[in-house]
């Protein structure tokens, strides 16, 4: 069943219950996100898709459409808030784009460009994080993890459905972990899938770095905004 909602003053017919972020993109309104994957259950971890719904700031991936919604997306304070959220992600980890093999294919970098981030307004935390390279096929570069939990929820052992990745500890002590035994059973296709859904360069397919020339990398060919609005993020 459809209802009429308003996004930035524009009246839109939307299906009740559909994630607000999807409705927005279906109507050519780009809302950046770093954890949400269309068609997958909402994670709501990154908060970068924050908008204002009937006066309250909410992550648009977590909000199903309901009757009487009045949504603000492009107000100056919300635009700046989303940019600040992206900046938080940069300062909370150790992101070194120049030498990162995900550069040009990295969603965090791409969203940084889309939100107009030039430099972080917050002090860098420079956390001390160790790398995990014990798995045969996956290099876990924890410096870059933004704790989106895509890998935790969507990459599972193909036989048992067990989680291969998990988050250990909380807050500033949080750490992405990998079950090496299960990870070593992953097929090359699944390893690639894990590396692809990681929005940063945290999950790396060992030995495959820098295989795409500059100019031919994902977001150099087509921007993340264009991909999302076309409903084909991985095309």
């Amino acid at each position, binding site marked *: 069943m459809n209802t009429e909602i308003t996004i930035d003053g524009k009246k839109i017919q939307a299906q009740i219950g559909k994630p607000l972020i999807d409705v927005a993109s279906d109507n050519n309104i780009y809302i950046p996100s770093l954890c949400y994957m269309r068609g997958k259950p909402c994670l709501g971890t990154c908060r970068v898709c924050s908008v204002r719904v009937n006066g309250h700031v909410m992550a648009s991936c977590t909000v199903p459409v309901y009757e009487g919604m009045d949504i603000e997306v492009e107000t100056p304070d919300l635009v700046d808030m989303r940019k600040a959220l992206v900046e938080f992600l940069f300062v909370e980890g150790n992101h070194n784009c120049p*030498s990162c093999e995900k550069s040009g294919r990295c969603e965090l970098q791409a969203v940084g460009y889309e939100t107009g981030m030039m430099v972080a307004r917050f002090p860098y935390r420079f956390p001390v994080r160790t790398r995990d*390279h014990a798995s045969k096929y996956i290099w876990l570069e924890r410096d870059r993890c933004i704790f989106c939990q895509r890998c935790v929820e969507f990459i599972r052992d193909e036989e048992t459905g067990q989680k291969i990745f998990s988050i250990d500890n909380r807050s500033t002590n949080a750490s992405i972990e990998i079950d090496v035994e299960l990870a070593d059973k992953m097929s090359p296709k699944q390893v690639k899938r894990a590396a692809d859904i990681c929005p940063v360069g945290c999950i790396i397919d060992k030995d495959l770095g*820098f295989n795409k020339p*500059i100019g031919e990398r994902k977001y150099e060919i087509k921007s993340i905004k264009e991909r999302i609005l076309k409903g084909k993020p991985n095309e």
Partner: protein
Amino acid sequence: MGQKLVIDPVTRIEGHGKVTIQLDDNNQVVDAKLHVVEFRGFEKFIQGHPYWEAPMLLQRICGICFVSHHLCGAKALDDMVGVGYSKGVDMLPTPEKVRRLGHYAQQLQSHVTAYYYLIVPEMLFGMDAPPEQRNVLGLVEANPELVKRVVQLRKWGQEAIKTVLGKRMHGINSVPGGVNKNISIAERDRLLQGEDGLLSMDEVIEYAKEGLEIFYDFHEKNRHQVDTFADVPALNMSLVDKDGNVDYYHGNIRITDDDKNIITEMDYHDYLDYFSEATEEWSYMKFPFLKALGRDAGSVRVGPLARVNVTKSYGTDTPLAKEALERFHDYTKGKANNMTLHTNWARAIEILHSAELIKNLLNDPDLQKENLILMHSKADWTGEGVGVVEAPRGTLLHHYKANQEGNITFCNLVVATTQNNTVMNRTVRSVAEEYLGGNDIITEGMMNAIEVGIRAYDPCLSCATHATGNMPLDVSIYDAKGKLFANKRR
């Protein structure tokens, strides 16, 4: 009373250094040192990174010769994954030629930058010309057409680099075992034929020839100065092919003496058997030397002058450079050339040599072929690699080790400027003695002569010490009691 002169910083070089000159009570030079006062930590902070990141991260050490660092790292990675020269495996033709193309393009643009922007101002205006004149802006005023051509030449070099590596600076092309792209017909044709705002290959060669003519003219007018300025001894070192001719990308390391006798020739993978490094408390830059000959006799010179001294010839496929090299060799009648300002002659020859090598490569259909990577498996893994190339400033070495998981555990970089440390200090001493010694009044022009001597090596102190901070050099002169007498700092 003795004095201590200080030049701080030395200008128009890459990196930050200073010179101190100690004079006695008669104003005779008793000591002269080039201090490198910056420090970097690339060898340490690469540790813990995945091995395949090394050529990408470590090329950030330099904004001038990044392609050399990238390729040196790539060669080391070839070794690590088991398809490198350490196992006697030759690179596939297409990736090797693509790598060479990027390498030669960088040598062209780097030498053009050093030669015209940093060195030619003194050649045209003199060492004691006012500082506000002897720089690239002075050059613009005196000869705008020349500067326009220089800018176009550099642009062409940068565009060639971009074609190979995707970006004008710090691009990415080489991966373990090969490259990630070849050169398309359209890319090749753009570089060969040029376009609006971009020179053609033939114009590049013409402009390169002009650079050489500028040196010849300067030499003709200033023969005594050019031939006597800092004539300092050193062994010469370069990568050579099996015929004993310079190969900027790969070969054995050959070291020759004043009579061009081969002192040592080595597979560069064995460098630790031959070389040791000394340190001094007054500089962050080390002093490499051949163990067999000791620190003084075993110090080598690298870079353009060393290469043209070591190489027997250039190929017939680079006729213009070959002819220029023969003229250079004839000048010293078969002996090695130790005249520091002749480094600029050698650099101009290498600009032309690079241009001709690039032209040959661009006409090679291998560049368009699709076989880009030597396949390798886990079983081939060696975990250790050494890469050496002839960077614009000389012989550059990267040595990495990684554990079975691919984690870098060791990194050693021996860069060209480090190899030149002893000979640069000899040059500073020689110029100080000749230009400053015994003079009651030290002029700015005299101090600049010291910098001219250093600039001839086009030192890259940032690479050599592996630093954060500002670029530039420092000359200080102290009196006999150690009191600072004069100091020059930009």
